[in-house]
């Protein structure tokens, strides 16, 4: 009965590789988000989608590309991974601008 799920939970890869993280929510929400949490535990928004439309696109390298095939899914594809991309990535969802519910996170380690 997981509300917001992400796969994989851990991702270890080498510099230069391309990887994807998947997110699904079963809450019936219309808005989904990607956040990055750095080593200091600071959470910062990267993207948001409302009804499959990209709304927020913060200052994120264009190596990061979100894709929303439907309102329940939001994936994050990362090209040419760099050491600085190592972090925990969280997916979240909400009904409009109400409280957001977060997934368990994906810990990405780039070596």
């Amino acid at each position, binding site marked *: 009965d997981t509300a917001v799920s992400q796969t994989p939970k851990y991702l270890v890869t080498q510099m230069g590789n391309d990887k994807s993280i998947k997110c699904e929510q079963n809450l019936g929400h219309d808005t989904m988000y990607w956040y990055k949490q750095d080593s200091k535990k600071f959470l910062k*928004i990267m993207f948001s989608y*409302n009804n499959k439309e990209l709304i927020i696109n913060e200052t994120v390298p264009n190596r990061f590309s979100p894709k929303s095939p439907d309102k329940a899914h939001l994936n994050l594809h990362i090209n040419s991974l760099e050491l600085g991309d190592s972090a925990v990535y969280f997916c*979240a969802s909400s009904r409009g*601008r109400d409280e*957001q519910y977060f997934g*368990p996170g994906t810990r990405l380690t780039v070596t």
Partner: protein
Amino acid sequence: EDQVTQSPEALRLQEGESSSLNCSYTVSGLRGLFWYRQDPGKGPEFLFTLYSAGEEKEKERLKATLTKKESFLHITAPKPEDSATYLCAVTSPNAGGTSYGKLTFGQGTILTVHP
């Protein structure tokens, strides 16, 4: 740009020792202030939303309050299971359009409750 500052960065309490966490914010109008709890290795868990000054919300040993400049999370008679990082976040009315739903988070307060 919205800013959120939480204090203290870390707080150690003995079981049963009540205390408060602070969240100071600067926004061009406040639409909502959110409190989350985050356990190690997990995603933030929603606790409360506060919308206007004077509003208060309670859940078990936690009580959140809001003024025009800050919010407090009061913890009454804490237990070891209350140990976690507590995050505060804000969203403003201006967070519409290309900032729709944008939450600005503070850096969090790490709470440790010793038995």
